[in-house]
Structure formats: structure tokens, C-alpha cells
């Protein structure tokens, strides 16, 4: 995974998380998981991934939806779906 792309992607993902949860102090890294963000729950998950799809012009599969459970997995899946 290209380092520059990853840094840029993390910035965009962080903005999406901040908007979703109305929290400008949220810091997202590739090590972030739902255990670190209480609001990242099953109800928010679909909206987060839909926003990421729109921002990167990609489409997650239904299986991606179920399997993405950390930022690291999210980034890897985004690469698989052609975001990089």
C-alpha cells in the first residue's frame, strides 16, 4: 500500500468519522478499531462505509461490509476495491 495514498486516505476517513460523530477531536490511525470509538457501532457502520464509498468512488461488496472491523482492514479492502 502506497504510504502517501494511505496518509491521504486516513485524512479523508478521519473527516468522515468526525462528521458522522460530530467530534472534531477524533483521531483515526490504521490501528483504530471500534473498541477505541464507542460511537462506531453497528448502527453507524453502514453510514460510515457508504460515505467512504462516495468519497473514494468505490463499491464495497456485501461481504466487505461484514468483514471490515478495523481501519487496517478498511484500508486493505479499499485497495482491493480500487481506491488506490
Amino acid at each position, binding site marked *: 500500500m502506497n504510504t502517501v495514498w494511505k496518509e491521504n486516505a486516513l485524512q479523508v476517513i478521519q473527516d468522515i468519522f468526525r462528521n458522522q460523530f460530530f467530534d472534531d477531536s477524533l483521531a483515526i490511525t490504521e490501528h483504530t478499531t471500534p473498541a477505541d470509538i464507542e460511537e462506531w457501532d453497528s448502527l453507524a457502520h453502514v453510514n460510515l462505509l457508504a460515505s467512504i464509498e462516495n468519497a473514494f468512488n468505490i*463499491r464495497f461488496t*456485501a461481504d466487505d*461490509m461484514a468483514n471490515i472491523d478495523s481501519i487496517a482492514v478498511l484500508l486493505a479492502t479499499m485497495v482491493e476495491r480500487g481506491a488506490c
Partner: protein
Amino acid sequence: MNETSQNASDRLVALILQRKPMHRKFLQGSLAELTQSERAAAEQYIRYLLQQDASYEELAECYLTIVQDMFREEMHFKQTGKYRCASYAEAAAAVYDNGDYMRRYMIGLALSSYWWINHIQMLRFFQKTLPATRRGVYREVGPGHGLYFLEAMRSSGFDRYEGVDISATSVALTQGIVASGYFGSFDKASIWQGDFLSERFERPADALVMGEVLEHVEEPERFLEAARSAVADDAYVFLTTCINSPAVDHIYNPETLQGLEALIDRGGFRVLDSCVLPKQGCTLEQCAQDRLPINVAYVVAKRS
């Protein structure tokens, strides 16, 4: 309830959240809404499953199966605006004819009935409206995991309890609950595998319950007409269903509350009482606008 009797539920929830922390807020938020007797009922059901040789790991897998599948289907619905299955044959191939999957799915759904606030509220609505002293025949179409059937047997005095389900797995699960003796002694129950639309009943039902059935049928209006012809004129008729709520085996989406109530009317019933539950954390207006899930339960009466 003492601490020991709480352990099975607590241990199972902890295992689920250890595997998928993402569900913590939703699940713990829901569990906080349970009354003491509802906690006791959930505990008893989990202990029953454990006694039937299920392990905690298997039960966690059952629960996670339905939530993970729901994610998949929500994404599909968001992208296409449609449920994945359009016919009964597709749903049967994906779910009903797959015994292992169906068992996991049903047990996962049963756990959600005890744990998810919308499902709990529908069960409360059923408990509140089911006539306790009425006699005659209680008939349930699609008892599925068997929990509504169990609740009816525990809290009403019908002379006979009948359950018909198209799935062999669901029949086995409900029969298991009845025959186990774990929840009490029930000798007036009969559960069999069959298609409600082609069943010929000996006498009209005095109570007809259709929990989470309409969304699984290709022709819901025809189904309601069949239900109408299977009940006494003054029967208690209870149904639950959902709007914009994709699942692996859902076929029919009424799209709107108005659309659903128009269907009920065309099916020959009028609404007496209702319990309308938007997705947790959302308003009904948001759900309608953004096509988010709405759970509904109705008590309806046969129109003359």
C-alpha cells in the same frame, strides 16, 4: 435473581463483544432496557440451549451470523434499493433448505428477540394484547424459533395450540421447546411442517399469530386472505413485520407504513392496535425519508 443465574447471559454477551466490539453500544444499550423478568427469560432460554449441547462459542456464532448477514443485506439494500431475494425459491435455497444455516439463523433471531429493544417491545405488545382467558384454538403461522409460541402457552388458556411452519428446522426447534419440559409441561400443543396456504384446518382459529411472516411471502395479500379464512369472526389476530428491513430471506417490502396498512385492509382486516418502532436512535420521519428499518406489530380484526 442471584449472580450465578445471571452468568450464562453475561458470559455469552461478553464473548460476542470480545469477538465484535462494534456491537457493544447497541447491544448494551438494548440490554439496559430489559426488565428483571425479561432478563430471567433470556437467561432461561440460553441455559436451555446450553443444556441441549450448544456451546457458548456456537451461540455467539448464531448471534453474529444474523448481525453480520444483516450488514451484508443492508449494504445490498442501500446500493440497489431492493431486497436480495425476490422469490420464495431464492430464499429457500439461501436459507430454509440449508438446515445448518437455518438453525444458526433461528437461534440468532431468538436471542435478538430477547435482547434487541425493538424486538422486545413487539414481544411486550404481544404479551399485553394476547387474551389470557380465551378458549378454543391458538394457531401460529411460522413459529420459527418458537418463542412466541412458548409465550402463548405460558400466558393464555386456549384449549389447543397449533403451529405450522414451512421449515423443518423451525418445526424441530419449536417442538424441542415444547417437549423438553424445561419451560413447563405443555400437553395441548401440536406443531407440524406445512405450507399455511395449502393447509385445511379442522376449525377456524380463535387466535392467529403471524410473527415475522409477511416479509417472507411472495403474495402477502393472498396470504392475508388465507389468514382471514382461517379465523373465527371475533378472533384475536396478531402480526409483526417490517419495512425497509433487509435480511437474507426477506422477499416483500411494503415500502411505507401506509402501504402496509392498505395491504392489511385489502387482506380483509382492520387495525385495532399497533406498535410502530423506528430503527433504534432514529425517528419515524427519518426512517421514512432515508428508507431505514421500521418494525411493526398489529392486532387486527376480521372485517365483516
